[in-house]
């Protein structure tokens, strides 16, 4: 569990959600601002153009009606200067207005006749000549030597000369620049703040989901009476927790039902089996002749096999339903395997089978001792029953970080290809097998019940391979370690 909480924050769902939400917010506000910016700049331009149109009309009038004498230049210049005093959108701090506005008049030949403005009129005239000027339609004009464009309107007067009135766009650009700067400052602040808020809230919400996940995985199939934490709220997460709990209620009740059925079945069969066994034993002690004893002995053997079949069958049934009840204690797999190898060694060598066991050190796991003992003995039985004489069996026990792995390999005929995919199902056995076909199904049921698994395959070089993995499960529930090591026959 701790590995989950320790993962970097960048891999969390909260991080991704906040990132996408912030991105959407940032893009959205950016588009809105783009429209706003366009609207403001159009508005300013319209006002400029209205002013220009008005002023150029006045100037045209003045230029037309003023006699072309020595005073003409002076009168028109005065009017032009006056007009420049009333520039719209002007920033008050700017004192010098005459570099914002220019007035230019060309004669019929297109040469400069009159110039009112800052500096020389020649570059302005050059720039004007380079582009067509339909009358009464304001145009942008870029002038060499000035980095700010002008808005210029032209008017033709009756004597054939043309007057041009230009207004610098400096102030307009400055207003827009300041607007952009303020927007971006606030935008950045808002985006960062929004990210922080979204991240914080989703993280809080998802931490509840994580609590539920952790609790649910702890419940697994062993602590079915536990429930996931529910908050008092009425949101989706609380709904999820309640739904999970209702589901657990149903699972618990059906599992309880299954236990009731298997227990009742076991109980109802075991009582008569006990009576039959007792009677057989009594008649066996009364039988004096070998011929009389023989069928009784066979009956007792059959009865014991039937009992074992009943036990294993019910265990496998519960195991398949993930309902096998475990009573865990600490067991040393290394010790268990050595004991088991010692137990089976004479039978193996009787059948001319050789066996090696590779295991280095004590390997403690928390598991149901009775079930694990029977599982390992099933593996040995399986080898003993199915291998032809003269084969080798290699067992290898390895400790991995959180699990123990037992590999059993032999150089026998291997599993028949047609049964390999169904090896762990009930009643599946090879053609020559004498067993009841529950051995490997039981191994799988026990491994699953402990959260492990078993895999079977045929080795490339011939023979069978079984790999059994069991989680060591030492970190959790240390308080239960006081249970006795030996467990009862189920």
């Amino acid at each position: 569990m701790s590995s989950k909480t320790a993962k970097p924050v960048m891999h969390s769902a909260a991080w991704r959600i906040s990132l996408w939400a912030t991105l959407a917010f940032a893009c959205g506000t950016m588009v809105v601002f783009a429209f706003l910016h366009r609207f403001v700049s159009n508005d300013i331009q319209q006002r400029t153009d209205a002013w220009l149109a008005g002023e150029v009309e006045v100037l045209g009038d003045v230029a037309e009606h003023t006699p072309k004498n020595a005073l003409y230049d002076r009168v028109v210049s005065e009017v032009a200067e006056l007009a420049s005093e009333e520039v719209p959108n002007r920033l008050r701090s700017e004192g010098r207005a005459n570099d914002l506005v220019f007035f230019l008049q060309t004669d019929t030949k297109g040469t400069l006749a009159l110039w009112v403005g800052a500096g020389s009129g020649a570059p302005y005239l050059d720039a004007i000549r380079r582009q067509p000027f339909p009358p009464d339609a304001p145009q942008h004009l870029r002038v060499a030597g000035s980095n700010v464009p002008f808005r210029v309107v032209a008017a033709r007067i009756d004597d054939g000369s043309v007057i041009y009135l230009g207004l610098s766009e400096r102030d307009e650009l400055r207003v827009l620049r300041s607007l952009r700067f303020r927007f971006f400052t606030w935008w950045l602040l808002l985006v960062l703040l929004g990210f922080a808020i979204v991240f914080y809230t989703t993280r809080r919400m998802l931490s509840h989901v994580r609590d539920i996940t952790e609790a649910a995985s702890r419940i697994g199939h062993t602590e079915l009476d536990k429930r996931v934490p529910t908050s008092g709220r009425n949101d989706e997460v609380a709904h999820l927790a309640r739904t999970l709990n209702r589901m657990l209620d149903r699972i618990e009740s059906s599992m309880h039902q299954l236990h009731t059925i298997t227990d009742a079945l076991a109980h109802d069969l075991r009582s008569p089996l006990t009576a039959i066994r007792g009677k057989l034993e009594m008649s066996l002690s009364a039988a004096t002749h070998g011929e009389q004893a023989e069928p009784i002995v066979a009956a007792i053997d059959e009865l014991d096999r039937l009992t074992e079949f009943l036990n294993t069958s019910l265990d496998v049934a519960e195991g398949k339903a993930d309902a096998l009840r475990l009573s865990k204690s600490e067991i040393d797999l290394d010790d268990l395997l050595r004991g088991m190898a010692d137990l089976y060694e004479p039978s193996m060598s009787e059948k001319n089978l050789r066996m090696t066991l590779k295991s280095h050190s004590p390997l403690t796991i928390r598991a149901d001792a009775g079930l694990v003992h029977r599982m390992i003995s099933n593996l040995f039985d399986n080898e003993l029953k199915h291998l032809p004489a003269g084969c080798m069996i290699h067992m290898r026990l390895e400790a991995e970080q959180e699990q123990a792995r037992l590999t059993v390999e032999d150089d026998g005929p291997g599993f028949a290809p047609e049964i390999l995919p169904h090896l762990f199902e009930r009643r599946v056995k090879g053609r020559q097998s004498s067993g009841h076909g529950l051995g490997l199904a039981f191994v799988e049921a026990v491994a699953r019940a402990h959260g492990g698994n078993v895999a079977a395959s045929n080795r490339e070089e011939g023979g069978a391979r079984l790999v059994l993995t069991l989680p060591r499960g030492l970190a959790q529930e240390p308080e239960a370690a006081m249970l006795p090591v030996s467990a009862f026959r189920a």
Partner: protein
Amino acid sequence: MRLLLVEDELEIQTLLRSGLEEAGYEVDVAGDARQAEQLAMASAHEILIVDLGLPDRDGISLILSLREMGVSAPVLILSARRSVDDRVRGLEQGGDDYLTKPFAMAELLARLRNLLKRNNPGVGEPTKLRVQDLELDLLRREAMRGGQTLQLTPQEFVLLEYLCRNAGRVVTRSMILDKVWGMRIQPDTNVVDVHIYRLRGKVDGKGLQPLIRTLRGVGYVLKDR
């Protein structure tokens, strides 16, 4: 030796009573918990056998109430259930024992003897065991037959020791697996038989009277006379 048997099923009751009486116990039989309490009050018993599935009450609550009433004799619990109740584990740690149905009579008797021995630790453990001309030195882990040292593996010695301690009495395969190898398993191969066969080859040499007898369908016995 007086014994109280609490078992509701008549057939099993009858079988157990005759088996126990044959083994030398004086048996009082109760069919339910109420009768068991009356019998336990009426006379003192040295050991109790209690079935968990009683008609009127749960076997464990009967044991607990008998304990409260001052009955301190050890109890052998019989059960046909699959799962082992935590309360049974508690009782087991308190010195009682547990046996699953169906069982071999020999195993029931062996467990009764064990319970009685545990309750009356007699004189100190012997360091030597002797059965006819077979002698086991428990300290040096050596076995001699008729003056000849037997070449036994440590495991074979433990097995022979277990047979000697139960000389004259039947031990079953599952008892041997439990006591000698510490495993409660039922292999469907003859692993125990092969061990006994090997041991017999070493103990019952040529020209000697065979000591280890096979009782087919029941188990093994080491003859003490």
